[in-house]
């Protein structure tokens, strides 16, 4: 006989492992005679059991089919149990597969190292939860107890120490305290996510305010818009529209509107503040403008090099001066 007892024992063990999802009594019924049977087989011919019978797993599959023990004959409890077993096995496989990329044998080896860090974080989260409850919703990054920072910090230290103490002893806890601890931890995780979401919302709100425009908008710095016509005159009560007929809203009024359109500051026409026009003078009837850039085709006779045909210098001419300056006043917007 070339097959040893040990080989038979190993073979049977692997067959039984492959039938692990069957109810224990069913599995025993199928395999109780297997060692004797394999001994008979071993006595009949040469070669190892695997050579003669194939891999134990294949043998188990054939045995399962022949013995009429398909998965469907199992009741719900056993199916749930089998699913749990399968899930655990898959989890273990993932665990082992993820380990090496992290530099550890299994991923859980790595995660176990992070446990003390989680204990500290859990203490902090508990302190923050008390902060939110005791201050009625508003919170920052540091815990406060009823608005008191010092009390909050003392509470933080106490909670972190308590959390570490609990973490080191969680393995020795009995069933119910441990379940309570796990539920508490789960609550803190949910709370942490909710708090992070709220903090995220708040930060985005602070960053962009009411402005719905995108980041890096080149028009962010615009406060007002000044439109000049081809004569270089400031156009008042101008309205801008895009290709769809939607009003273009730029800037915001920071001076009083003479028309006083209450509640709709963005619907005001441009410019909001004509007094702050970068190029003067303003439209006809404003001779007192002082800031006159050289490029402005100003009709003031004193500043015009061309021979003015009119005798009355105070009346603004309606035609362009003959010597047109090279630069048209660009309707620049300034901020």
């Amino acid at each position, binding site marked *: 006989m070339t097959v040893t007892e040990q080989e038979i024992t190993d073979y049977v063990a692997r067959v039984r492992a492959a039938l692990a999802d069957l109810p224990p009594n069913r599995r025993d*019924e199928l395999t109780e005679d297997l060692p004797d*049977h394999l*001994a*008979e087989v071993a006595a009949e011919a040469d070669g190892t059991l695997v050579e003669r*019978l194939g891999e134990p797993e294949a043998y188990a599959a*054939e045995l399962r*089919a*022949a*013995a*009429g023990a398909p998965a469907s004959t199992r009741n719900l409890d056993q199916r749930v149990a089998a699913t749990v077993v399968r899930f655990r096995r898959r989890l273990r496989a993932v665990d082992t597969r993820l380990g090496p990329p992290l530099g550890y044998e299994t991923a859980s080896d790595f995660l176990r190292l992070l446990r003390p860090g989680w204990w500290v974080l859990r203490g902090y989260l508990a302190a923050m939860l008390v902060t939110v409850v005791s201050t009625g919703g508003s919170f920052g990054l540091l815990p406060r107890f009823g608005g008191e920072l010092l009390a909050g910090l003392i509470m933080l230290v106490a909670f972190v120490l308590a959390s570490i103490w609990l973490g080191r002893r969680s393995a020795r806890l009995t069933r119910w305290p441990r379940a309570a601890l796990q539920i508490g931890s789960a609550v803190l995780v949910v709370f942490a996510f909710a708090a992070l979401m709220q903090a995220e919302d708040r930060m985005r709100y602070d960053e962009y305010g009411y402005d719905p425009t995108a980041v890096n908008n080149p028009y962010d710095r615009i406060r007002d818009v000044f439109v000049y016509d081809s004569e270089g005159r400031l156009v008042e009560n101008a309205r801008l529209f895009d290709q769809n007929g939607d009003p273009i809203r730029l800037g915001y009024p920071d001076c009083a509107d003479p028309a006083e359109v209450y509640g709709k500051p963005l619907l005001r026409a441009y410019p909001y503040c004509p007094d702050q026009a970068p190029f003067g003078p303003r439209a006809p009837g404003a001779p007192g403008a002082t800031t006159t850039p050289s490029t402005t085709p100003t009709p003031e006779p004193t500043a015009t090099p061309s021979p003015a045909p009119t005798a009355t210098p105070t009346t603004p001419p309606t035609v362009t001066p003959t010597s047109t300056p090279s630069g048209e006043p660009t309707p620049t917007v300034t901020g």
Partner: protein
Amino acid sequence: MDTTQLLKGVLDLAVLAVLREEDGYGYDILRRLREAGLEEVGDASVYGTLRRLFAAGLLTTYVVPSESGPHRKYYSLNAAGRDQLTRSGKLWRSFATTMDSLLDDRGMAA
């Protein structure tokens, strides 16, 4: 369709038939089935079928000690087993006749 597929349905009957004349132990039954022409039958199938027929109360077992090798567990038909063999045998014959005539009608019989 290969023989393995056909075997699934009739292995019970084949094992019962093999045991009709003479009791046998697991490996012996497998050898007899193979000698009769069912070469694809596997050891696990025979072992599993024996366990199932035994659990269904169609077989009885007894152990025969052996001086040279391991003890052998012999299987034998009991009354219920013989009854089952008769009924399954009749069913098989009528089924086989139906299949034969079906194939004959279409001129496919070998």
